[in-house]
């Protein structure tokens, strides 16, 4: 880099910490600048995200009909009590947790295998990865509606392939209460397995060649190579992917709403969609209460995860990424 003389003089303060008390002053000034740089973002987040959160919390103790806001008043814990007394609420919690556990497990396992599959030197590997990441970036609405079309019982592509291609019975997919949730899971895994696979792949590719070479010399390969060397090394990446996917699965709304609206019956009525139906009935206080319960659930999971992650992360940090 070239620096002209004039520019060098402009920034002479940074070059002058020769006397000892100046070093402290410079550090203090830098800290001040750091807080100034951080302040706008934090301020915006407090106003736009934290404040609405508090507002929602207050609302959850009120009765506040959407179509008749004038009668709004505080009712204490009634909204929460109503939820806990409601069978449908408990069913939606159960459904959501089952959903999250199943889809995240499938996505992690499948994503890991596909990452292994793509973690190799071959011509066109970059192109393959670029193609594979597409599902992550396409809109869940566009694809959810398209999947609905694919799962049409009579003329859909899925049944046609089953029937004509493999000679199997046609399935009811989204239109039956026993198969709707599984069908949704298939679509969610279609969309998010590539996300998991590509982050794990990036983690795998950051393992230094020396480690790979040492493993090869020690004849550690195949299954053992992955369980003994790769997985421990990329553990922080794995944990963060699980965390992101877990939170997003619990919050699931888009796919759930455009593909089934919680039906048939209440077979796929998961937390966010259930909360939206409460909104449509106009019970804003009740909606806020349920939203808050989802938030608490997510926070418990996040805190538990981050605890276990940061306890080991410092020790097991991947050397090459530093």
């Amino acid at each position, binding site marked *: 880099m070239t620096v002209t003389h004039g520019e060098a003089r402009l920034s002479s303060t940074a070059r002058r910490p020769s006397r000892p008390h100046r070093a402290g002053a410079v550090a203090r000034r830098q800290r001040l600048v750091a807080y100034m740089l951080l302040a706008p973002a934090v301020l*915006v987040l407090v106003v736009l*995200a934290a404040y609405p959160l508090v507002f929602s919390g207050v609302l959850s103790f009120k009765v506040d009909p959407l179509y008749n806001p004038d009668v709004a008043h505080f009712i204490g814990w009634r909204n929460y009590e109503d939820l806990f007394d409601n069978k449908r609420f408990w069913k939606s919690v159960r459904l959501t947790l089952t959903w999250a556990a199943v889809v995240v497990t499938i996505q992690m396992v499948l994503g890991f295998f596909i990452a292994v599959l793509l973690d190799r030197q071959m011509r066109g590997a970059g192109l393959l990865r670029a193609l594979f*990441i597409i599902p992550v970036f396409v809109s869940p609405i566009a*694809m959810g509606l398209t*999947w609905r079309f694919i799962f049409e019982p009579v*003329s859909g592509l899925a049944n046609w392939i089953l029937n004509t291609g493999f000679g199997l019975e046609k399935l009811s997919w989204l239109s039956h209460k026993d198969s709707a949730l599984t069908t949704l899971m298939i679509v969610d895994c279609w969309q998010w397995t590539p996300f998991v696979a590509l982050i794990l792949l990036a983690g795998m590719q950051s393992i230094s060649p020396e480690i790979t070479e040492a493993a090869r010399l020690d004849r550690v390969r195949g299954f053992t190579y992955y369980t003994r060397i790769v997985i421990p090394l990329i553990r922080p990446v794995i944990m963060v992917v699980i965390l992101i996917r877990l939170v997003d699965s619990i919050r699931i709304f888009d796919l759930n709403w455009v593909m089934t609206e919680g039906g048939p019956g209440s077979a796929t009525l998961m937390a966010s969609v259930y909360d939206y139906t409460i*909104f449509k009935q106009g019970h804003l206080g009740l909606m806020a209460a349920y939203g808050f319960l989802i938030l608490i659930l997510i926070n418990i999971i996040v805190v538990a995860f981050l605890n276990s992650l940061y306890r080991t992360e410092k020790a097991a940090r991947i050397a090459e990424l530093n």
Partner: protein
Amino acid sequence: MWGMNTKQAINLLAVVVVILWLIPVIWVAINSIKPTNIINAPIPTFYSFTPTVEHYIEIFDRFQFDRAIFNSLVTVGVSTLIVMILALPAAYAVARMGLMRGDTWALVILSLRFMPGVVIVLPYFKMANWLGIHDTQILLIIVYVAFGLPFAVWILRGFLLDLPKEVEEAGRLDGLGWIQIIFRLILPMAAPGIAVTTIFTFVFSWNEYLFALFLTTSKATTMPVALQKTIDIYNVLWGSLSAGAMIQLLPMVIVVFLLQRHIARGLALGAVK
């Protein structure tokens, strides 16, 4: 097997998996240029039809998709710009300025991203009604800034931490002030990270549905909401839906294609740093 060794067989498997995975996307593309009577025929076909642009015309004529595209571009574009302007200094501060508890700041900021949309949307809904800004682009821009900012800071921080520790030191030795160090050294070196973060912020809002559904009715409707209007109980227009979906998907696919390598790396960096 057929003269292939194991390595070639695995390569072939990788190719097959990826192609099978993309069938739904290919299916949208094909249906968007298929005549309606063939779309509704009981036997699906991938190729035996005469291509048509009727659905692309219909999505504009009947569903005002031009307005949806315009709204999406404005709300998502402006909010992404604001997010980046706020996120860059913040990420730099938590990543490289020796801020006390920089990690904690980053975590607190990220934790806001974990809020369920249904909790946050309600206050905005009420606020919009008081202020009379329901169904406006301003409202969506505000919400998208709130939701895009945490993740943007998080990913950028990963990229900035990944730059060599000596950058600022070298700049200082060359006599640069910190403003110059940021603009002449850090920003150019972090360019891929900035690009990836911009893409992520853009895509999240571009595909966002819940807020758009709650906070718009007709004037400020974005593409995902407009898209859903092609489907109601009486009338399922698969052709128009596919055409609209293509218009929404294509720009994302192109951008992702160009930045694929950096995207996965960026997420992994955010994860381990």
